C-alpha cells in the first residue's frame, strides 16, 4: 500500500472514531435533554462521517487499487492526490470550526475547497480508469 493511501486510510479511521464519538454524545444528549450546545456539533458529526470517513477512505483505496499507468507500477503524479487530500482536510477543519463557532462564510469556503478536492482526485483517477494493459517486459520482447 503506497504512503498516500496509508495516510489517507488512517485519517479516515480517525475521522470514523472521532465523528462516531461525537454522534454518541449527541445521542446521550437527546436521551436526557442535557448539553443543548452539543447540537451545534451535529454538522461536524455529519461531515466527519460522510466526508472525513468515506471520502478519505475512497481516495486512499482508489490511489492504491486502480490500474497502474505502466508496467513499472507508476500510479501517476502524486501531487494531485496530495492536493486533493489537503483540500479535503482544510474543508473539514473549516466546517468543524464553523459548527462549533458559527461563521457564515464557512459553508461557501468549505464547499469550494471540497469541489476543488473532487476535481483534483477525478483528474488523477481519470487516466487510470482503463482496461488492464500488460506490456511485455524487455527480455520477452527480445525472444
Amino acid at each position, binding site marked *: *500500500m503506497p*504512503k498516500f493511501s496509508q495516510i489517507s486510510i488512517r485519517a479516515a479511521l480517525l475521522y470514523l*472514531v472521532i465523528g462516531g*464519538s461525537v454522534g*454518541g454524545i449527541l*445521542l446521550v444528549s437527546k*436521551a436526557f435533554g442535557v448539553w443543548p450546545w452539543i447540537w451545534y456539533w451535529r454538522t461536524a458529526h455529519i461531515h466527519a462521517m*460522510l466526508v472525513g*470517513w468515506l471520502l478519505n477512505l475512497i481516495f486512499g483505496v482508489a490511489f492504491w487499487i486502480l490500474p497502474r499507468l505502466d508496467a513499472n507500477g507508476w500510479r501517476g503524479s502524486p501531487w494531485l492526490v496530495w492536493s486533493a487530500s489537503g483540500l479535503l482536510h482544510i474543508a473539514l477543519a473549516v466546517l468543524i470550526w464553523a459548527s462549533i463557532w458559527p461563521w457564515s462564510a464557512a459553508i461557501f469556503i468549505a464547499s469550494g475547497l471540497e469541489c476543488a478536492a473532487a476535481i483534483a482526485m477525478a483528474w488523477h483517477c481519470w487516466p487510470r480508469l482503463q482496461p488492464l494493459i500488460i506490456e511485455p517486459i524487455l527480455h520477452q520482447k527480445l525472444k
Partner: protein
Amino acid sequence: MPTLARYYIRTAFVWLVLAFGLGSAMLTSQLWGFKTNPLAALQIVFYHALMVGWVTQLIVGVAIWLFPVHTREQPRGNERIAWAAYITFNLGLGLRSVVEPMLQWQPSTVVSWAVVVAASLQVGALWLILLMLWPRVKGKAVKAK
C-alpha cells in the same frame, strides 16, 4: 473470503434490506394523511441503518478481506477484536434502532438509559474497528534475503 468478512458483508446486506423496508414504510405512511406522522421518528434510524449498518459495515468487511495481511501467523490481525467489534457494532445499532424512536413514542428513564447503552456500544465498536484495522494499513512487507 474469510469467515469474518462474510459475516460483516452478509449482515451489511441485512441492514440494507431493513433500511429500504423502513424507507418504503415511511414513504407509504405519507399517503395515510396523518396529522403528525408517527413513522417520522424512524427517519434517523433509516439514515443510520443505511450509512452505518450498510455502508460502514460493508467497507469494514471488505477491508478485513482485502487489506494487507498483518502477519503470516495472524493474517487478519487479532480476530477476537474483530468479532467483538462485529457483535458490539450490530448490538449497538440494533438496540439504537429500537429505542431511539421510543424516545418520541414512549419516553421513560429506562428508554433513555437504553439509548445510552446503545450509544456506548456503537462508539465502542468504532474504536474496536480502529484497533483492528490500524495495523493492517501498511506498505508492502520487504522479504528478508
